[in-house]
């Protein structure tokens, strides 16, 4: 049997659709040039030197005690953060799905906790950790009178990263728990199992792959994280910060490239396990929809302790976030808590705050629509079209999820500072705002694509087919049918991309030139110098911007979104 004729006809049909074919070609070129190529050049550069192929660089960096320490540190923090984030995530998810929360206050707390990581710049928690528990900490010194508490290092990173990443686990596990058919647990109850027994013998085994998945996701996030170890790590260096220092401190680009390859290998391995083993497993065991509503636990002996535990964690996290805006109004943290606006004044008078905000704002504002549109196009092609290269597009845009920002940054330095393949081609790109925009796009593309793909999978294939059948070409189908139907996903992708871009630091800090002042880089600098008031002022304005964008998004979805139009009876 030969499928050659259908393949030939499909090719003909594709060629009969010039917009589609152009899109595909441009997309493949973009993904290759800005995701695959920088990673490939890292691999090449770290083994190829003037005297041929050798693993000298790897031998050299592996012999560095600092690198050895960095790997150990990174993995240790990663495991600890992964485990605790998954557990706290499970606690929150379980309480929300299984336990009757009596008060509006509690449901509000849960909502805030799930939203915080979306709107918060990455290093806010590190800042507040230092301000709460550091040497001059509000709690350590102010409340407890401890003067020499050292928060820098393992514990600092561990606590801060756990707080940053558990909400993601919570949202993931919540989805899984909701899909468990309540009758399974009722059946176990009915046969005489205690509530604890039901949890350990039914609920837990069902979500175990999902729990593993949550662990790996936070593990990857943790080892890829740059900002928090940078601020609160002290001398406790992780791979991401070591790579950064190797470039900015030691000017050893080749060594940094080799280190980046090591970091990338770890995240890629974890990503592959997560994507192909655990994700498949966790959804296959829980594909069934819950048949009806679950009887919520009202038993106070379960309800009260669990609720209080969640409330404490949530309040702690929220308190940490509030610490930063508070800090921006305080004259001198640790000694003089008199309120002042001098930091904000200095932001704009002394430190080019206006330029920093307009640079960050403009670059992100350009990157966001590109990202959102690009991810919707990729999702459309991946979900709705069959063509050669589809697998490539899907794989590469998902791969970008596993690439730590620092690795991408080093890849761009190696890949573009002397032009593509060191030939000078596209060299002009390096050091411009355009390359920053491209980094923003690449960094946010995977999340947008993932949300687009899941939104599109919900849409019956025949809806687009019907438009196609009526005489619309691919472009018209995309514009008049696909995009309007996933408008919500598009809008949220737009804002997510904007927020992620304006709060990004790990990759751009390696690529930014003095010409551009980015807010995040400013915060990092001030925090590094110990001027927490300034850092807080910058961070507070940033939070206001991101939170404002999210509010704007929710408003837009409510008024212009598809769900409203479709739900309208």
């Amino acid at each position, binding site marked *: 049997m030969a*499928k050659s004729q259908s393949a030939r006809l499909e090719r003909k049909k594709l060629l009969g659709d010039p917009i589609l074919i152009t899109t595909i070609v441009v997309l493949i070129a973009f993904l290759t040039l800005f995701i695959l190529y920088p990673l490939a050049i890292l691999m090449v550069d770290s083994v190829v030197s003037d005297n041929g192929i050798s693993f000298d660089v790897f031998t050299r960096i592996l012999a560095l005690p600092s690198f050895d320490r960095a790997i150990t540190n990174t993995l240790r923090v990663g495991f600890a953060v992964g485990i605790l984030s998954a557990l706290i995530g499970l606690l929150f998810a379980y309480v929300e799905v299984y336990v009757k929360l009596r008060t509006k206050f509690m449901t509000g707390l849960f909502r805030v906790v799930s939203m915080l990581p979306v709107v918060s710049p990455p290093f806010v928690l590190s800042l507040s950790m230092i301000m709460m528990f550091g040497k001059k900490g509000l709690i350590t010194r102010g409340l407890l009178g401890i003067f020499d508490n050292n928060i820098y290092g393992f514990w600092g990173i561990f606590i801060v990263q756990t707080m940053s990443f558990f909400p993601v686990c919570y949202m993931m596990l919540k989805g899984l728990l909701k899909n468990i058919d309540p009758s399974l647990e009722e059946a176990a109850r009915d046969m005489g199992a205690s509530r604890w027994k039901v949890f350990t013998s039914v609920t837990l085994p069902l979500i175990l792959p999902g729990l593993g998945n949550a662990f790996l996701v936070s593990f990857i996030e943790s080892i890829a994280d740059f900002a928090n170890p940078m601020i609160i790590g002290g001398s406790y260096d992780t791979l991401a910060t070591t790579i950064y220092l190797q470039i900015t401190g030691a000017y050893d680009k080749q060594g940094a490239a080799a280190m980046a390859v090591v970091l990338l290998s770890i995240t890629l391995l974890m990503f592959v396990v997560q994507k192909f083993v655990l994700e498949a497993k966790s959804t296959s065991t829980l594909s069934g929809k819950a048949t009806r509503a679950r009887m919520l636990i009202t038993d106070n002996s379960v309800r009260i302790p669990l609720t209080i535990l969640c409330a404490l964690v949530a309040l702690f996290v929220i308190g940490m976030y509030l610490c930063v805006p508070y800090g921006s109004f305080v004259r001198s943290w640790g000694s003089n808590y008199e309120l002042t606006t001098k930091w904000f004044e200095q932001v704009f008078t002394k430190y080019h705050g206006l330029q920093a905000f307009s640079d960050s704002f403009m670059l992100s504002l350009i990157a966001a629509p590109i990202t959102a549109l690009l991810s919707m196009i990729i999702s459309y092609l991946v979900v709705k079209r069959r063509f050669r290269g589809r697998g490539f597009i899907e794989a590469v845009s998902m791969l970008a999820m596993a690439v730590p920002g620092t690795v991408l940054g080093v890849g761009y330095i190696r890949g573009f500072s002397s032009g593509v393949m060191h030939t000078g081609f596209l060299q002009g790109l390096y050091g411009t705002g355009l390359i920053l925009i491209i980094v923003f796009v690449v960094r946010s593309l995977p999340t947008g694509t993932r949300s687009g793909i899941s939104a599109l999978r919900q849409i019956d294939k025949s809806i687009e*087919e*019907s438009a196609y*059948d009526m*005489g619309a070409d691919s472009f018209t189908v995309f514009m008049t049918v696909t995009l309007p139907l996933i408008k919500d996903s598009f809008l949220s992708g737009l804002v997510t991309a904007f927020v992620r871009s304006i709060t990004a630091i790990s990759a751009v800090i390696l690529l930014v030139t003095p010409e551009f002042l980015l807010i995040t880089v400013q915060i990092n600098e001030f925090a590094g110098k110990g001027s927490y008031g300034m850092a807080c002022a910058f961070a507070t304005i940033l939070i206001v911007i991101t939170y404002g964008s999210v509010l704007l998004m929710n408003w837009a979805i409510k008024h212009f979104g598809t769900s409203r139009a*479709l739900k309208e009876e």
Partner: protein
Amino acid sequence: MATEKKGVRLEHISKIYQDQKTGKDFYAVQDANITIAPGEFVTLLGPSGCGKTTILRMIAGFESPDEGKIFLGDEQIDELTPNKRDTAMVFQSYALLPHYNIFDNVAYGLKLRKMDKNVIREKVLHILSLVGLEGMEERMTNQLSGGQQQRVALARALVIEPSVLLFDEPLSNLDAKLRVDMRNEIRRIQQEAGITAIYVTHDQSEAMALSDNIIIMKKGVVDQVGDPQTVYYHPADEFVADFIGESNFLHATIADKLDSETALCRFEGHEFEASGCSHLDKGKECCIVLRPESARLADEGTLACEVVLSRFMGHYQNYHVMVGDTLIKITDFNPRTHKIYNVGDHAFVDFTKDEVHVL
């Protein structure tokens, strides 16, 4: 409507799919040769997985054939994308555009053809009245019942005046009574528009009610093509006989040929005459199709039997009787006027030589 009627011709069409589990290739459609005359209503009928939808989707352009050619009128269309083919499809899930109201849904295809606004309005309103949806233009699709959504889907397909209308099990999401109403509607509208229609279904009564011709498919292969009477009374094989209506299969031998058409058949120790045996010689084995409603239960007749089931169903009495080791189902319509046999009664199955079909 000013549509030019066009026929459809499939020449040696095959489609190969890969089995998801074993990874092996198999023919979803194999060497299908189908000719549909202009203005004809043809049904592709068969159980699920027989390749009928694949054929429809190949005609629409969503799938490409691995072998063979497809013609619309005289034009070969295999290389055209769906939007360039002069076909319009009515989908099983209706596939209405949920972000448009009824008017915009129906007008979608016309707008793509860059027609004048007033012409579009006129055409849409006309077609909506044809399908019985006057005054519903402003409604959103989710404010309609299943039957109404189906009418919109039909109107949307009709309004672009395609050469061929394609139906992909359009009624399977509706409840039984509505299904009957809608199929009569579809037939009426198709006749009024005078348009060529290809209709995919697994429901044999739908196929009978709608079609000029029925194409029965089995495992990717076209099994029989014929008008409803032909496929019912002269099924090509046991599969068709079993799929369309109910059948008793009597495995008999030809005891003697009485003339070129008629033969004496021996079955379970009984002998009876059957016509339509020109293809069989004396001594051959054959399978005789006896429709339950063609057989009668009587005090004397062809085959002696014992009643094993007798059930009153309202408009008919349902019998199962044993003739030797063979179970025969008999449907006795309007039983009020007939003698009712009970379980355990001995009786005879009676039929004439023209009431059977010999395979």
